[in-house]
């Protein structure tokens, strides 16, 4: 009995050291805090495909933990054992919105930020038959009558974008929260609402097919897939907002492993195969290193806090 105990203790002491030397020696779980088949899920699977090139022996498993606007997944990443075998994806603004609304059992420093990979800029869209052609028209109309604008849920990137836009331009929308972007799309295409704040990837196909009109993209520069759509800044309203999708690990992982993961993401971000795949999948890249992404998240949290204080949800 005693021998067994000793052996167990020896193994317990020995294994972590050993594990570190050969990391990764067992499958790495990537927690995706959204539904299977969504764009975050697809990003994770494309990342794995590219990562295998650099870590040929490593195995990755995607675990979709959807629900509560990503909250369940974010919490699971923060709670995970910091041994490098569980990492996860986060997306904005939800990751900070939950902290701001005091629902999260985590804070930004519960994570080691590996870096950012993807983004999806916000857009302003109107129905095909709408007389509104640009932001000036929109603001003029909104000042004259109450306009209904759809956002995907409260505290989402759409919501924060709409609030930012209201603040910049002094208009006030009759905000309609929806469940998911599908509802937003159906309402824009069916002309049930006057405008919608949503992500570029969600409506670019409909814009190309002429079924809806994107009147502004809330980014610093125009998008390559829709070069005819002006940015908000070009139209005189410097509102910029994007949804980022990055990678994190639970705080407290060892420096060696953290460095390895950081390095892997940077390599994948530059990988030509990965770039080709994301272009095909209409996903937009926004490579950021860990420190850059952390600074970005902190700034976003402060901004979201401001909106929450004005109008809590």
């Amino acid at each position, binding site marked *: 009995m005693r021998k067994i105990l000793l052996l167990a203790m020896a193994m317990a002491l020995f294994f972590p050291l050993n594990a570190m030397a050969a990391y990764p020696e067992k499958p790495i*779980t990537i927690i995706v805090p959204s539904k299977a088949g969504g764009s975050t899920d697809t990003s994770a699977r494309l990342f794995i495909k590219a990562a295998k090139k650099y870590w040929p022996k490593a195995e990755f*498993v*995607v*675990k979709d933990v959807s629900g509560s606007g990503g909250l369940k997944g974010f919490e699971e990443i923060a709670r995970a054992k910091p041994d490098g075998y569980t990492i996860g994806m986060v997306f904005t603004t939800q990751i900070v919105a939950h902290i701001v609304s005091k629902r999260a059992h985590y804070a930004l420093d519960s994570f080691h930020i590996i870096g950012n990979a993807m983004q999806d800029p916000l857009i302003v869209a109107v129905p095909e038959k709408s007389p509104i052609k640009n932001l000036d028209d929109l603001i003029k109309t909104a000042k004259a009558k109450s306009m209904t604008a759809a956002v995907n849920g409260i505290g989402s990137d759409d919501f924060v974008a709409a609030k930012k836009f209201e603040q910049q331009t002094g208009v006030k929308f009759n905000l309609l929260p929806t469940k998911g972007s599908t509802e937003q799309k159906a309402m824009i295409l069916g002309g049930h609402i006057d405008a919608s704040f949503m992500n570029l990837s969600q409506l670019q196909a409909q814009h190309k097919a002429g079924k809806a009109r994107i009147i502004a993209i809330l980014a610093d520069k125009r998008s390559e897939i829709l070069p005819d759509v002006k940015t908000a800044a070009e139209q005189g309203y410097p509102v910029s907002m994007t949804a980022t999708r990055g990678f994190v690990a639970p705080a407290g992982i060892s420096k060696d492993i953290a460095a390895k993961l950081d390095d892997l993401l940077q390599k994948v971000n530059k990988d030509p195969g990965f770039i080709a795949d994301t272009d095909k999948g209409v996903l937009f890249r926004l490579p950021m290193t860990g420190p850059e992404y952390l600074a970005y998240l902190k700034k976003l949290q402060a901004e979201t806090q401001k909106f929450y204080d004005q109008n809590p949800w």
Partner: protein
Amino acid sequence: MSRRVAEVLLLSGFLVLAVLLFRSTASYPESVQGSTAMYVRFLGAALGLLCTLELIFTLKKRRDDDNPPEKMNIAVNPVRFWGLFLLLVIYCAALSTLGFYLTSILFLPVSMVLLGARKPLTIVLTSGGVLLFVYFIFARLLEVSLPMGTLF
């Protein structure tokens, strides 16, 4: 407990629930007092009304003196019924500490014996077969993540 008493108890419970629900809508934000709060108020009011009606009907219906009151019979075989329920509760509670495979390898044979299975070979083969099936189809092929233990 007779079925009538159980019904009255349940209905009173629902009535209390309806009242609480109705009253809770006062604390909804001002912006939704006309929309979602209204909806919830309607649910509370309708449920309360229906429960009151049914309560009146149940209490008014006089008991037939010829028939003895109908017994509330939850389980035909109480030992197996509650035994299985208890096993299920333990099983679910143990999932998050012991992990899926270990708890299942205990749960399957124990519940089989509880329910009257006596052939050791059948029990072992069925339990093993089910777990192998789960491993290959769920874990390997479909990459479903099974409950993991925190102990290991």
